[in-house]
C-alpha cells in the first residue's frame, strides 16, 4: 500500500481499519477496549516491582526467578502476551545490566506494562548499544569505571527484565515497602532502585 491513503492522518487510518474489521466481524469494540484498559490501568511496572521485592526477601524465589523468569513471574499471577520467555538478569556491584530492543520495541509486558516512549525512540535504541555509559549518565546513572555494563537486546525469543540491587538501609522492610522503591527504569536498567 504505497498510496495517498498513507498520507492521511493516522487517526483516520486507524479508524478506517477498525471500522472495516468490525464490519467483517473480525474484532469488536468491547474486546479492543478491554485490551486498551488493561494496559492503561492494570498491567504495569508495579507488577515487576512485586517480583523484585519478593526476590529481595526470599532467596529461594530469587533463585527460581533467575533460573526461569517466566515461571517464577507466573507464580505471582503475572502472565500474558509478550511474557512467554522472560529472562531476569541480576545486577551486582560488578555488573550492571541494561535492556534495549534494537529492532522494534520488545518489552516484557506482564511485568512492566507497555514501554515508555524513550524506550521506543530510535536514539535510545541505537545509542545505548554504542555508548551505554554516556546514555546511562544522561539518565542520571553514573556508574564507576569498575562496574561493567552489559547491554542486552530483546527479541522475539527473549524479553529481559533487570533485577536491581537492593538498596542499603532497607533491612526489615516489608515486601510492600520494598516494592515502592522499584521503578520501571530500574527494571529496564537505566536507573537503580530508589534509596529509602
Amino acid at each position, binding site marked *: 500500500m504505497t498510496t495517498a491513503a498513507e498520507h*492521511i492522518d493516522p*487517526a483516520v487510518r486507524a479508524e478506517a481499519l477498525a471500522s472495516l474489521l468490525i464490519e467483517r466481524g473480525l474484532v469488536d469494540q468491547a474486546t479492543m477496549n478491554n485490551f486498551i484498559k488493561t494496559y492503561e490501568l492494570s498491567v504495569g511496572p508495579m507488577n515487576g516491582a512485586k517480583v523484585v521485592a519478593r526476590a529481595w526477601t526470599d532467596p529461594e524465589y530469587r533463585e527460581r526467578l533467575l533460573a526461569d523468569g517466566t515461571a517464577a513471574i507466573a507464580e505471582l499471577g503475572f502472565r500474558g502476551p509478550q511474557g512467554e520467555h522472560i529472562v531476569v538478569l541480576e545486577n551486582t556491584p560488578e555488573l550492571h545490566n541494561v535492556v534495549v530492543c534494537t529492532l522494534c520495541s520488545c518489552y516484557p509486558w506482564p511485568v512492566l506494562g507497555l514501554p515508555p516512549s524513550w524506550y521506543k525512540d530510535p536514539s535510545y535504541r541505537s545509542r545505548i548499544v554504542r555508548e551505554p555509559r554516556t546514555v546511562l549518565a544522561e539518565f542520571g546513572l553514573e556508574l564507576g569505571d569498575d562496574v561493567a555494563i552489559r547491554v542486552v537486546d530483546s527479541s522475539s525469543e527473549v524479553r529481559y527484565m533487570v533485577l536491581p540491587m537492593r538498596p542499603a538501609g532497607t533491612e526489615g522492610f516489608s515486601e510492600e515497602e520494598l516494592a515502592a522503591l522499584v521503578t520501571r527504569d530500574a527494571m529496564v536498567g537505566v536507573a537503580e532502585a530508589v534509596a529509602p
Partner: protein
Amino acid sequence: MTGPGGHADPAYLLDSSGPAAPPRDNGELVFAAPWESRAFGLALALNDVGAIEWEAFRQALIREIGDWEAAHPSGEGWSYYECWLRALERTASARGLVDPRALDERAALLAARPAGHDHAGHDREGHRHHGHEHDLHNGSPSHP
C-alpha cells in the same frame, strides 16, 4: 514508602507519581493519542482471535521501523505507533482481512468528513457519532 500524598486505595493505584504506581509512571501516559490506543487494541484483538500471527506482525513492525529510520536519519517526526499502524495495515492486508483498496477508500471517506467530525486528537468523543458508543471507564463494556 507509601503513595505520595498519602492517597487511600484505590486512588493510590492510579497515582501518577508514585514510584510503583505506573502504567502512567513518570507522568507519561501509555498512549499519547486515542488513535494509538485504537491501533494497539486492534492488533491485540486480531491476535487474540488468531486472525493475525504476532510474529508476522512483529516482523512487519521491524520492517516499518527500519524503513522509517532509513528514510529519516535525523529522527525528526518519529512516531512509534505510526509504524505500528502501517505494520498492522500490511499484516491485515497480507492475511486478506482487509482489501487495501477498500481501506484507502474508507480512509479517504472518513478524512473528507466535514469539520466537527474530525477525529484527530479527540476520537473518543467521535465514537458517539458512529454508533460505537461504549463506556471507556467501565472495565466490562457490554457493547455491542
